[in-house]
């Protein structure tokens, strides 16, 4: 409960009421203000956010019910309490119908007043927390949260959106950190199965027997330690979606078992004989070249074709640098909600660094770098040193013999642009090239966002 954040507006035509009640509530640590009539109260409600309105019923001109009705239209979340010295059933019913939180007959016991305010503040804190948690839970998982200006990525989203409507198996391909699971979750959320479960299994993290048990479950006594029947992820994901990450890493035995599930939509638990039927949509993902694995005999060709019904290839971040500013804005917004910090922007220098970084870990790495920066940033803007990339860049520069000429050129141009505050003329002069050449290089290396950031 945050008392300082709770703002209370007292609306009463009697000065002594306004003064004494304000004083009483201020001593509880709330921010309190008052209005002497309905119109000035509504003006205050229009101008500022209020948590609670304590409104006297009987006032000349605009009465408490009229204030209640208008205030609820402007700020539906504010709790309006009607106070009256002359209670009638009719006005009480009218007040509650108009959305009053409570209808109190003056004078009230200090305990009653104190408990009511505490209760309202507690409920409002819960609502805020709920909104925040929902925001955090839903992060990344809708297509509207997948951001890109890159034509390849836009095509990916279009394909995924279409695929979401079907129950076909999807194979998501892409380097580590490109957002394969995020895409899979978004497909699930946008699919007719969204009310069902979404379960993710990392196939590379477990041994063959553990993964088999994890996917298909086991009967009691199936192996040492199997003291009770255990449902597997396939059963648990019934009417939902199962995401099988790093599918390229599963053993031939499990490849066969998986093929059977995909073909027959049923399986048996480890140590069991009864078949279990399931309705599960499979989204598999890998960062390996499955076609090559098939050629080399490491992956079953029939399973490959079963999985490869709708292949979706996610490009690495280095191939869509123009998305970096957009992703930075999007991720910053999420991170601020999650960490409770208020970091609104990224400085010119910091954005230049982000644009030139090679991002071998893709969007996941970008998110991690920003998360660190949000935590260490001292102001509302992330500065270059906050990113922790400077040391890494120095390390790369030291290993110069491992860098291509283009990479060096790109980094140097970005650096000079950052130093000159994005001023093309000044940067061109420093680089000793003409402005047209510099523009061409900015375009070639996707540095435009640095200029406009």
């Amino acid at each position, binding site marked *: 409960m945050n008392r300082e954040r709770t703002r209370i507006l007292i609306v009463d035509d009697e000065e*002594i009421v306004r003064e*004494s009640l304000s*004083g009483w509530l201020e*001593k509880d640590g709330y921010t309190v203000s008052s209005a002497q009539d309905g119109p000035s109260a509504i003006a205050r409600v229009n101008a500022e956010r209020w948590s609670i309105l304590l409104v006297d019923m009987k006032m000349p001109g605009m009465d408490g019910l009229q204030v209640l009705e208008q205030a609820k239209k402007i700020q539906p979340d504010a709790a309006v309490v009607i106070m009256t010295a002359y209670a009638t059933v009719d006005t009480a019913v009218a007040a509650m119908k108009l959305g009053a939180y409570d209808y109190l007959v003056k004078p009230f016991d*200090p*305990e009653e*007043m*104190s*408990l009511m305010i505490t209760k309202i503040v507690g409920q409002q804190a819960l609502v805020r927390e709920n909104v925040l948690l929902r925001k955090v839970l839903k992060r990344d998982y809708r297509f509207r949260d997948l951001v890109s200006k890159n034509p390849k990525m836009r095509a990916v989203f279009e394909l995924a959106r279409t695929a979401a409507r079907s129950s076909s198996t999807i194979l998501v391909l892409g380097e580590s950190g490109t957002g394969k699971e995020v895409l899979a979750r978004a497909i699930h959320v946008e699919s007719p199965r969204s009310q069902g479960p979404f379960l993710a299994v990392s196939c590379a993290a477990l041994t063959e027997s553990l993964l088999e048990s994890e996917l298909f479950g086991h009967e009691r006594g199936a192996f040492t330690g199997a003291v009770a029947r255990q449902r597997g992820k396939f059963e648990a994901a019934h009417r939902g979606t199962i995401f099988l990450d790093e599918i390229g890493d599963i053993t031939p035995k499990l490849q066969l078992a998986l093929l059977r599930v995909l073909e027959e939509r049923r399986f048996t638990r480890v140590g069991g004989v009864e078949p279990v039927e399931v309705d599960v949509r499979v989204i598999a993902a890998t960062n390996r070249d499955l076609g090559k694995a098939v050629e080399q005999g490491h992956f079953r060709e029939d399973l490959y074709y079963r999985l490869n019904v709708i292949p979706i290839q996610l490009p690495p971040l280095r191939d869509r640098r123009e998305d970096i500013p957009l992703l930075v804005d999007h991720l910053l917004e999420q991170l601020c909600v999650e960490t409770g910090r208020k970091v609104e922007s990224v400085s010119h220098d910091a954005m230049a660094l982000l644009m030139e970084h090679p991002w071998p870990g893709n969007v996941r790495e970008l998110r991690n770098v920003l998360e660190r920066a949000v935590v260490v940033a001292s102001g509302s803007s992330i500065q270059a040193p906050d990113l922790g990339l400077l040391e890494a860049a120095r390390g790369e520069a030291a290993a110069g013999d491992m860098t291509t000429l283009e990479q060096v050129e790109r980094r140097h141009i970005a650096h000079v642009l950052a130093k000159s505050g994005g001023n093309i003329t000044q940067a061109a002069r420093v680089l000793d090239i003409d402005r047209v050449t510099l523009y061409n290089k900015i375009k070639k290396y996707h540095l435009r966002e640095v200029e406009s950031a």
Partner: protein
Amino acid sequence: MAAIYVWWIGADAPDHALLDGVRAAVSRSYELPARLWHGEERPADTWDPRRGQHSSTQILHWLAGHRPAGARKVLAVTDVDLFIPVLTFVYGEAQLGGHAAVVSTARLWAGPDGRRLVRTRLVTESVHELGHTFGLVHCRTPRCAMARSINLATVDEKRPTFCAECRLHYLERLAREGDDHEQGADADPDRR
């Protein structure tokens, strides 16, 4: 050093031992000199015949205009029942960050043999209301003098001393107020 003045404004004759107990306790809690003020004047126009109680807010208005010269804060003690318009009663009231506070024994009654308990309650509420004049707001530590007083159970749970956090706030506030009061200190300590 400017003192806290304790002033009996009740209807009955003052209980000197009780008042001296309050004086000593607030002096201890606030680490400031405190003295009894024997002014004969009483607040006017604070009685509400409809409610049969006295308006604590009106008493504060009156006190603000009758603060004895040289008083850092003035704590009025009374035996009349106090109210603010929306509440059935209050144990006391104070100007937040101001100079005046009032406490009443009317609701602290503890039975025929409860004189000692009344004194304990009055001391706690006196420290509490004076705390508001030093800008302190209600505290969530139930034993702190600045915890809310919404019924006798909450009053009895408190001690007439501050929790560590409230004490820190008080000392900070005292340091800020210090210079303002040094000038007027003891200008006319014996005014009646």
